């Protein structure tokens, strides 16, 4: 497979994952804005932080009014990371990698882009927001379904999966990081349950509020939430889950290409050195420091994959 094609597949699924994560963030933020209007500004600011666009937003707006934030995140042309801009990049990547995609995956991606473009041609009114966010999730599910249902399990599939899980791990880490200060004071209160709507938003931002309740009942503690999002092996957005998938896919690639890649080793190191420790040790080390280490390592792995599989021409 061409290095460029591998890169396009990798980025296509990263962008699609990003679109879906943005929709989750907006959904969680919107809910807070509706139910606890007093904390809405804080919530929107942390959503913008987690999306990495808070500076771009501040350059344009002075306050965190819901309508402005929503429009900025969904479709503002000044925001290169808006849902529409990222969806366009996903579709362009899919076009570049068209020959490596099944007709179903290409059509699902192309239709998603057309559907979302039509739905967001004008600013989305607040009363229409839930429907629009639902549409984004639904379109992501269609692409994912087509991918899982029709793609050959070859190297192309591995690159798609690597892109999804690297992006997802990054996103979960970021949402944890913007909220880490909320988790910190609770360390002393291990075991006590707190009624803090913020826990719920963290869980909501990763669509885990219901599954968490099934596992833990109403006992929402800082440590339990962090444990769930970082270390839980069955939670599909946890760092540990993402890394088990990343390792699997790198192993398949190595086997397929008959080599031992540096990225495979690196993923192994991240699993062993960063993720293989109890939540107590993580809190002791410092949650913020832990997450920073993780984000840097995760970025490093993405760069190593790019090098190992010739995404670009290297000088020399």
């Amino acid at each position, binding site marked *: 497979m*061409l290095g460029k094609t591998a890169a396009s597949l990798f980025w296509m699924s990263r962008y699609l994952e990003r679109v879906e994560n943005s929709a989750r963030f907006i959904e969680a933020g919107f809910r807070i804005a509706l139910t606890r209007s007093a904390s809405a500004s804080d919530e929107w600011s942390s959503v913008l932080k987690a999306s990495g666009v808070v500076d771009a937003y501040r350059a344009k707006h002075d306050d965190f009014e819901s309508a402005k934030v929503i429009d900025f995140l969904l479709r503002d042309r000044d925001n290169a990371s808006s849902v529409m801009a990222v969806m366009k990049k996903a579709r362009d990547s899919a076009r570049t990698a068209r*020959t490596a995609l099944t007709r179903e995956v290409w059509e699902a991606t*192309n239709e998603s882009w057309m559907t979302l473009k039509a739905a967001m041609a004008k600013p989305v009114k607040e009363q229409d927001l839930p429907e629009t966010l639902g549409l984004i999730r639904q379109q992501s599910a269609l692409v994912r379904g087509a991918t899982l249902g029709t793609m050959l399990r070859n190297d192309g599939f591995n690159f798609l999966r690597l892109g999804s899980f690297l992006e997802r791990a990054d996103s979960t880490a970021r949402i944890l990081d913007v909220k880490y200060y909320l988790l910190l004071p609770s360390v002393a209160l291990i075991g006590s349950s707190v009624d803090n709507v913020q826990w719920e938003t963290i869980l909501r931002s990763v669509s885990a509020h219901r599954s968490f309740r099934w596992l833990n009942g109403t006992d929402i503690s800082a440590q339990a939430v962090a444990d769930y999002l970082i270390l839980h092996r069955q939670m599909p957005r946890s760092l540990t889950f993402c890394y088990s998938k990343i390792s699997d896919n790198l192993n398949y690639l190595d086997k397929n*290409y008959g080599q031992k890649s540096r990225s495979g080793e690196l993923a192994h190191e991240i699993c062993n050195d960063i993720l293989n420790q109890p939540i107590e040790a993580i809190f002791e080390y410092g949650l913020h420091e832990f997450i920073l280490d993780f984000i840097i390592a995760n970025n490093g792995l993405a760069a190593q994959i790019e090098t190992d599989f*010739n995404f670009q021409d290297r000088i020399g």
Partner: protein
Amino acid sequence: MLGSGEDVRQPYQDYKNWLDREDVKRLHRKSADAEAFFRKTGITFNVYGQDEADERLIPFDVVPRVLSAREWRKLSKGIEQRVRAINAFLYDIYHRQEILRAGRVPVELVANNAAFLPQMIGVNPPGGIYTHIIGTDIVRTGDEEFYVLEDNARTPSGVSYMLENRETMLQMFPELFAKIKVQEVSHYPGQLRRSLAACAPPRCEGKPVVAVLTPGIHNSAYFEHSFLADQMGVELVEGHDLKIVDGRVAMRTTEGYTAIDVLYRRIDDDYLDPLNFDPQSMLGVPGIFDVYRAGGITIANAPGTGISDDKALYSYMPDIVEFYTGEKPLLENVPTWRCSEKDQLAYVLEHLEELVVKEVHGSGGYGMLVGPAASKKEVAAFRAKLIANASNYIAQPTLALSTVPIFTKKGLSPRHVDLRPFVLVSPEGISITPGGLTRVAMTKGSLVVNSSQGGGTKDTWVLEE
């Protein structure tokens, strides 16, 4: 569809019988379905010079254009003869130039022609093939009268529409194909791959590696490039995927560099190699032409084929066919006035309102004058351009082009059409896919069928014997 009277022409008889029993509402619905299908599949083309670089659909009409087996036999024989002559001409013009020595084509027309590539002199393309893929533009003016409008010997496009139009028709009207036996076109991608592989260069070892070279996703024909690569099962590469490794052109893969044997390039000669041609080009591969000359790669079509479909040379095609085949041309050439010649220019200037005037190097329907359709002002403006640079133009009469009905909101209505059959050439022979791309002028009375000017397409049927 209709003959000289009001009678339905024989090849259309079965279709007309079917159509008469169809519900018009259903046809309208199918027509809308087709558009949605094309959009969803991404069968679009980008229009240059438009904001947003938006992708447009080429209008598709649900009424097929039908040719009988007999008509097709006649046509394909004529095309084959012409393609054979073009390859012989190209070999000659880049070697001994017998045709110039014999005085059948003026020397200056070749020597001063931008489409003539001096770098190709003495080069022997693998298998002796210059034009691996040709799309001959044909128009019809009467029952037995076919004219060749253009030879398109560089990088003809449109074959993906020929294939997708048929797919669409099969999906929309399966019952029609059960009733009427139409010759297949779907083997084209397989034939294309075989034909390209048969032209592998001397340095090819083992099974030839074929790839398609595209300028990228913003090119107007990108859909076609990815479609053909996908259908052939070969890689779709861009210039930045390629570099010269050990005297071969190699593509960067996830496992290192792999040599390419045959490159079906969809970029112009100028952009092919910044070291040998346009130094500004970002699309090509530095040094590819040197590898080509050393027998390390086959470039399809060969560089320099543009000289054979040059509009200035067009009027000499009957001589060219006769010179190399020793036969009278089977297909007509459209009478052409060369504005470079004084007396002919005088005639053209006097009859501008009746003529079609084209730029010698233009394509895609840009920069031409269709006299009968132009306003007085447009004619006057064009006259000035023509006088200022006469040798840049040729003129042709407006032919009484045949029409085929399209399905409009108000029912069937006649529109002018042309036909572009696709020809594959390899040392193993010449093959022409039955049918081709029918382009149709969607505006009533218009003679311009180019998709860049709003023209549409139709499925083209060649009936079984």
